[in-house]
Each structure stands twice: as C-alpha cells, then as structure tokens.
C-alpha cells in the first residue's frame, strides 16, 4: 500500500467516523446523566431528513442544520417526558423513537416531495462544502507532511471540524465544570444530588437536550455533507454503532474519539477490500468487517478485555422520597 492510498483511507475514516463521533458524544451526555438512550439512531434519522428537507426547500444549509437539530431535540424531549417525567422504561421509549423516526421521515418525505421517500438532491448552498484550510495548496508539494495537511486535515466540511472540537469541549464540560460534575453525579447517585438541593429532573432534561443537539448535528452531517440529500433509512445502524463505541469507550470522551475512529476505519476498509488484501495478504469478508464493531463490543461487555462499567443509576427513573 503506497502512502497516497493510506492518506485516502484515513481521509474516508475521518468522514465515516464523524457521525459516529457526534452520536457517541450525544449518548455520552445522556447516559452519564443516567438516561439510557437507544434512540440515537432515530434522532439521527429524523435530523437527517429535516435538515435535507429544509435545505432543499430554502436552499440554505444553515437553516437545514437548525431544522435538523430542532427535530432531534423534539424526539429527545419525548424521550425525556417518557423516561424522566413519567418514569417509563427508557429502553422501550428508545425503541419507540427509532420506529417513529423510521416511519415519519418516509411518510413526510413522500407527502412533501413525492419522490418515494427521499428528498431532492441538494446543490450549491444546500450542502456543507469542503473547507480548504489556509496554505493547503501551497504546502501540498512538501513530502509526507504536505499531503497529510492538504488531503487529510484540510478539505473537510465544517461539521467534521465541529465534531472533533466537540471532544475536548465535552471533556471540559463534564470534568472541569460544576454542571459536568452534577451531571455525572446524577448518573451515579441521583439521591445525593437531590439532597444537595440540585434538581435531578432539570439536570436530566439538560442532558437529553444536549444529546438531541449533538444527534441533530450528526444527522445533518449525513444528509447535507456526507451525502447530498435524504434517502430512506439512511442512518443505516450508525446510531447503534455509536452506542457500541460508547460502551467501547467506557463512557469517556477521548476514548470515544478513538473508538469511533477505529469503527470509522472498519467502515472505510469495507469499501477497499484490495487494500486489506495487499496489507495482510489474505481476503477478509466484508460482512466480518461490518460486524466487527458489534463483535468487539460484545467482547468488551463480557468483561474479558477490561470491564465496561456503565453509570450506576443508568436506566432507573428517580423517585423523590415523599
């Protein structure tokens, strides 16, 4: 494998890891606050549709992004009402949200655009265009570092840079602010937070709303940056891979970055069987690569390679003593 192929491979790794990373951080906020969220997939899908639909109608990708985030927050609030206010089963609520998004997106797409459940292709201002970083062209000729900068680091859309910036930001919010301390505490021991006079319900709603915002950006990235428009079921299990990455990362932001990059690399390799064959000298089935994130997560969950311990109060509704 030559150097340029490696750069191309890493470049598509970054592209494929971005939605996983955003959704993974979304889940991180929610689950650290004690709200399990298997509805990441549905929120991404809804956001992918609404951002593409609004971008197609208005021609502005920014309005599209806003609509995507809004739709994702709406589903987050539904999850919040079911699991925080009415203390319902968070897992069942997540399942319902996934189906709601899968059904409603096609239903509305058909009603608005009559194109068999897809949106019109996005053009011009309706998409996030790649950003060329300064000096990328000038430095491209420098051996090794030049292509790395020009091809790998430069030339992504705004949302990719946003996703990578979200990692240190998430770390800072969770581990260096008072809000973050309380958020983590509410996922471990909500009664203690309540005793300290801080609202458990308020914190948990804040967490699911942040989760909605990040999922919204992830969905918008799918339909307005990675591809040009919405197609039915376009999230294609990415929400679940993000969930797997979250467990793989043991609910920590920096590990989330590495986990999603690793899973992104699997995705990139799936489209380049020739590269695998050249590097390890044998053929690897595409199906195996596709299933690898799930298999690795099961192994991690089984606790054979370092145990993944979820937030202790995760999944349990908090009942204030009366």
């Amino acid at each position, binding site marked *: 494998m030559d150097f340029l192929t490696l750069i191309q491979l890493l470049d598509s790794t970054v592209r494929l890891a971005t939605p996983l990373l955003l959704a993974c951080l979304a889940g991180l906020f929610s689950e650290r606050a004690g709200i399990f969220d*298997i509805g990441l997939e549905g929120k991404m899908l809804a956001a992918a549709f609404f951002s593409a639909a609004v971008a197609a109608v208005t021609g502005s990708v920014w309005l599209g992004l806003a609509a995507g985030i809004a739709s994702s927050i709406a589903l987050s609030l*539904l999850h919040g*009402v*079911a*699991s925080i206010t*009415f*203390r*319902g*089963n*968070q*897992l*069942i*609520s997540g*399942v*319902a*949200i*996934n*189906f*709601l998004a*899968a*059904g*409603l997106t*096609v*239903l*509305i797409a*058909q*009603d608005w655009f*009559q194109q068999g*459940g897809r949106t019109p292709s996005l053009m011009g201002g309706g998409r996030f265009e790649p950003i060329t970083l300064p000096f990328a062209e000038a430095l491209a000729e420098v051996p090794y570092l030049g292509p790395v900068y020009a091809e790998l680091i430069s030339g992504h859309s705004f949302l990719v840079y946003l996703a990578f910036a979200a990692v240190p930001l998430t770390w800072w919010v969770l581990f260096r602010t008072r809000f973050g301390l309380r958020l983590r505490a509410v996922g471990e021991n909500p009664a203690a937070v309540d005793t300290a006079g801080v609202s458990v319900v308020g914190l948990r709603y804040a967490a699911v709303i942040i989760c909605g915002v990040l999922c919204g950006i992830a969905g918008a990235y799918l339909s307005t940056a990675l591809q040009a428009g919405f197609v039915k079921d376009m999230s294609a*299990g990415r929400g*679940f891979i993000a*969930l*797997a990455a979250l*467990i793989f990362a043991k609910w920590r932001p920096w590990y989330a970055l590495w986990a999603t990059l690793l899973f992104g690399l699997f995705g990139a390799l799936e489209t380049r069987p020739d590269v695998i064959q050249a590097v390890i000298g044998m053929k690897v*089935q595409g*199906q*195996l690569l*596709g*299933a690898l994130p*799930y*298999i690795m*997560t*099961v192994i991690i*969950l*089984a*606790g054979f390679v370092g145990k993944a311990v*979820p937030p202790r109060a995760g999944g349990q509704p908090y009942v204030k003593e009366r």
Partner: protein
Amino acid sequence: MDVMPKWAEVVLVPLISLILAAIISALVILAIGEDPVAAVNLMVTGALGSTYGWGYTLYYATNFLFTGLAVSVAFHAGLFNIGGEGQAMLGGLGVALACLLIPWPHWTLALLGASLAAALFGAAWAAIPAFLQAKRGSHIVITTIMFNFIGAAVLNYVLVNIMRPAGSMDPATARFPEAVHLPTLHDMLGVVGIPFSRAAPANVTFVIAIIACFLVWLLLWRTWLGYEIRSYGKSEPAAKYAGISPVAITMIAMLISGALAGLMAINNVMGEAERLVLNAVEGAGFIGIAVALMGRSHPFGVFLAALLFGFLYQGGAELALWTSIPRELIVVIQALVILFTGALDNMVRMPLEKLFLMLRRKEA
C-alpha cells in the same frame, strides 16, 4: 392492595393507551392530507374483506404470535429481549438447513424436524447474550442488539458464500423440495369444504402458533418453572431468597424466548418463501415488542395483539397499493403503540389510579 381493580388494570389501561395511539395515528393521516376514515375502511376491506385478505392477515399474525410470545416470556423474567429479529433470522437458517440437507419423506416429519432446528438455532442465538447477562452482568438489551447485527452479517455471509446455488446471483438458498411443502389454509379448509384463497400464504403454522400460545400459558402459570420465572422477574432478591438461581432462570427464560422467536421461521421461510432469502424476517422481531407490550405479556393478550398487527400489516399493504400513503404508516402506528402502551404507561396509569382512589374514598 392494588389501587385499581383488576379489570381496569387488564382492560382499561391498555384500551386507553391504544385509543391514544389510534387518535395520533389518525392525526398523522390527516396531516399528510388523507382521510383517516376512508383509510380505515380500505384497510378493513383489504385485510378482512376477503379470504385472500384474511390469509395474509393470519400469515402476518402467525409471525407476530411467535415473536410476541418470545418477548413476553423474557419480560416475565424481567429481561428485555430486543434480539428477536436476529433469533428469527438464525431460526430461518436452521429451517433452511433442515429442509435442504435431510430428504424428508412427508411434510409432517419435515415440519417436526424444521421446528426443532428453528427452535435450536433461535435458542443458540439467544444463549450467548443470556450467558453474558447471567454470568458477567453484561446488559442483555445491548448484547441482543449487537447480536441482531452480527446475525444479519452471518446470514449475509452464509447466503452469499455458502448456500447460494451455483450460477445464481440472488443471495438466497435453493428452493426447498416439494416434499416439505406445508399445507396452506386453502388446502386445510378445502378438506372440510370451506373455500379459501389459494394465493394467500397462511398455513398450518398458524395452528402451531396457537398451540404455542397455550403451551406458554401452561408453562408460565401452571408449572414450577413458570412460577420461578415470574417471581424472578417480579423481584430478584426475593427469588434468590426462595432458592431460585438467577443464572438458571435467566438462561432458561432466554433460551425459551430465543426458541420461540426462531420458530417464526417455519412460517415465513418454510410456509411462505420455501427458501431462505436475505431479510426474511422483515422486522417481525421488533413488532414482537409492540405485540408483547400491548398484550400485557399474557398469551391471550399476545394473541389479540398479534391479530391486530396482522390486520395492520395487511391493511397497510393495501393502503400503499391503492392510495399515496406509504407502507411506513404502519411503522408509525407500531411506534405509537410501543410508546403509549410501553414507555408512557404511567401517563395513563397515574390519573386513573387517582380517579379510582377518589372513588374508593367516596364509598368509604
């Protein structure tokens, strides 16, 4: 003592949840510019207006009966088996292997053998998540979700690389031999002189699903094992104190659950397609969740809920055929049923409990 009388718990709460789901569904149909009344009429005539419609309704209902029972048994043990989809997929693999590798002399024997294979493969696919939950404490919801995806990859690999007949481009197995053809309702009812549509896929598996319902009821409410499963689901510490082994109950409940989900394959793979195709399950594993929630995890409730979803599926297909409403409307209705009967259960229950408390105080 319970706040609500039993009839309110069993009938009123699910009914109100269902009505809420129906109202929102009607609003959704209105919002996309269609007439909900006309839609319901079309669904009723499409699904129940002919023996052809009934044949499809019962065919779908058979699938949902198996997956609904699968989810219910796990629910009784306090486990959420979201992996019915993967278990049914692997059950299909078991059926395909049994039908293609063994030269069955008669369909009755084939049905027996294929059922066994389906149940075994389904149970095997549930066994690893069950073991990890029981022994290592890994959350069964996550592991069963992962196993759905792993199962899809396994099936994809097997169909594309191993079981695909030479020269065929289609990722599917060869057709099963004629000897394993299951009698359809057309064949069965024809014997007693009742005319039934020849084209509809409903078959003898429907009867087996009803027997499965009865057996699950027997198991849960009339055997020691069922008692242990239910008490473990109600309270783990209490069950432990009574000498019930959490590891054994988790394993047994999940194996039964997986076997039931796997059994669905004798309907869709052996009864209908007569070969194994990719995506043969078509989401029936997930509909099992809605069916179990709506049926309150009771076999009779599951039976009614499976019929309703069978009706919705066939009716939805007719809607998609004759109007511009896409088939995904059914997915929305399914989501709303899961939402209202599952996640938002307390929204209906809390005001009702208050109401019954008030009534009781007045009496006293």
